[in-house]
């Protein structure tokens, strides 16, 4: 479980996060949704330690991440897997080497063990036959799956996904959504997905946090999302004609 307690973050005069508190539960896909520029990414970066919040605490299973020094944070960082919006694969390495990388840098595994583990992760995302390719030779969907394989290589307790479906066609997006859901349930990971893709939210979310102008102004589940109740949330969720039609049918 990850707890955010009263997070505040500003850049100069721009107050991006305002008293953000949230709980992301273990074994569930926790979505963070909101419009572009609402503060979702800053919140995620504060959670994983890429930014230090001005105030507030981030607690990983009772461990106060914000109060730790770099050395102590390293332990938690090794329990975090992250899938980036652009996949962030290392261009100079093959798919296999990308997945092996965290094992090579952070574990004491032998070369054979690393190879086997990377092969198992690639098998899990159905990319066993792409191991010798370079990221530039993979499609967007494949790159995302390699990103997931790399993220789970170290058996993480926490998985963060930043816009996992951006730039993907609807069918591939569903494959990625299902993969994230399955992996979360299979490994009992605390998964946090940052997205503004309503298809993904309806497909894969267990809990949903809606961020608006730096505040979490609503949280609940899929059913609650369709009921609405908060104007900003309704404006966001029912922006498309399709979602308005779905609401009528519900």
């Amino acid at each position, binding site marked *: 479980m990850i707890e955010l307690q009263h997070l505040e973050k500003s850049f100069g005069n721009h107050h991006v996060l305002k008293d953000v508190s949230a709980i992301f539960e273990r074994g569930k896909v926790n979505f963070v949704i909101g419009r572009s520029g609402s503060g979702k990414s800053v919140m995620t970066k504060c959670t994983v*330690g890429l930014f230090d919040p001005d105030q507030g605490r981030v607690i990983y299973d009772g461990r106060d991440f914000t109060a730790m020094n770099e050395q102590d944070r390293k332990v938690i*960082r090794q329990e*975090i897997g992250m899938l980036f919006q652009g996949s962030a694969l290392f261009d100079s390495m093959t798919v296999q080497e990308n997945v092996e990388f965290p094992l090579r*840098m*952070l574990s004491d595994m032998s070369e054979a063990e690393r190879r086997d583990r990377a092969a198992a992760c690639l098998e899990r995302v159905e990319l066993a036959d792409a191991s010798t390719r370079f990221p530039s030779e993979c499609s967007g969907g494949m790159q995302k799956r390699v990103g997931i394989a790399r993220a789970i290589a170290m058996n993480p307790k926490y998985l963060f996904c930043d816009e996992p479906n951006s730039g993907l066609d609807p069918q591939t997006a569903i494959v990625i959504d299902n993969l994230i859901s399955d992996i979360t349930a299979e490994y009992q990971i605390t998964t946090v997905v940052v997205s503004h893709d309503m298809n993904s939210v309806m497909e894969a979310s267990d809990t949903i946090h809606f961020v608006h102008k730096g505040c979490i102004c609503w949280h609940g589940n899929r059913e609650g999302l369709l009921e609405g109740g908060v104007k900003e949330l309704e404006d966001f969720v029912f922006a498309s004609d399709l979602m308005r039609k779905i609401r009528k049918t519900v």
Partner: protein
Amino acid sequence: MRWMYHIGRYMRLLTKSFRKPEKFSVFKSLLMTELESIGLQSLGIVALLSIFMGAVICLQTAHQIGGWIPIYTIGFTVRQTMILEFSPTLIPVILAGKVGSNIASQIGTMRVTEQIDALDIMGVNSAGYLILPKVVAGVFIVPFLVVLSMVLGVGAGAWIGVTTGLSPLADFEYGMQIDFRVFDVVYALVKTVVFGFILTSVSAYHGYFAEGGALEVGKSSTKAVVWSVVIIMVSNLVLTQMLLN
């Protein structure tokens, strides 16, 4: 005050870079790659420039002297120019253009495509992983390139002097040996080590803190070259004053 901010951030980055590597075997393999990238892949340009500069210095000196100035001055001037200034200063400046822009754009691209964030989130010291091997490689390999440049420059000077008939080989050799001080080579190599450090670390700094997209990576690459050259020139003055006086 902006420059103080950059100096502080540069120092913090260096401190972060010079921490103990996570895996020494990985560091060793990265170091080998960088030695090849900075050293071997720069051999051609260093050799080309040094040969032509040595030859041109020989021709220009021969053109300037006459009358009471002895002919062996050609050998002396070629040696002194190559050892004292051209090889130790201009070769690093040229490397700042070739290697520095490469380092800044490589690290800058990794920054804007979130590859550096990926390293940090994994718990890998991104600065140590990306910058330390480059700086160590630069400090070790640039002096070798400079020594090669000295040898090729002086050799080319001798060759052009003899083949054009401007200086007999014996006179050139005599000029090369006259008033030779080993300290001049030591002075040149000390400068080179410092310049190797500057050109790799300053370029890495500009790449590491690149923001935005392709345009900004291009700009950071340009800044890396400009600032490396400026700092090399200022350090050249300071080191020359310190070492020769």
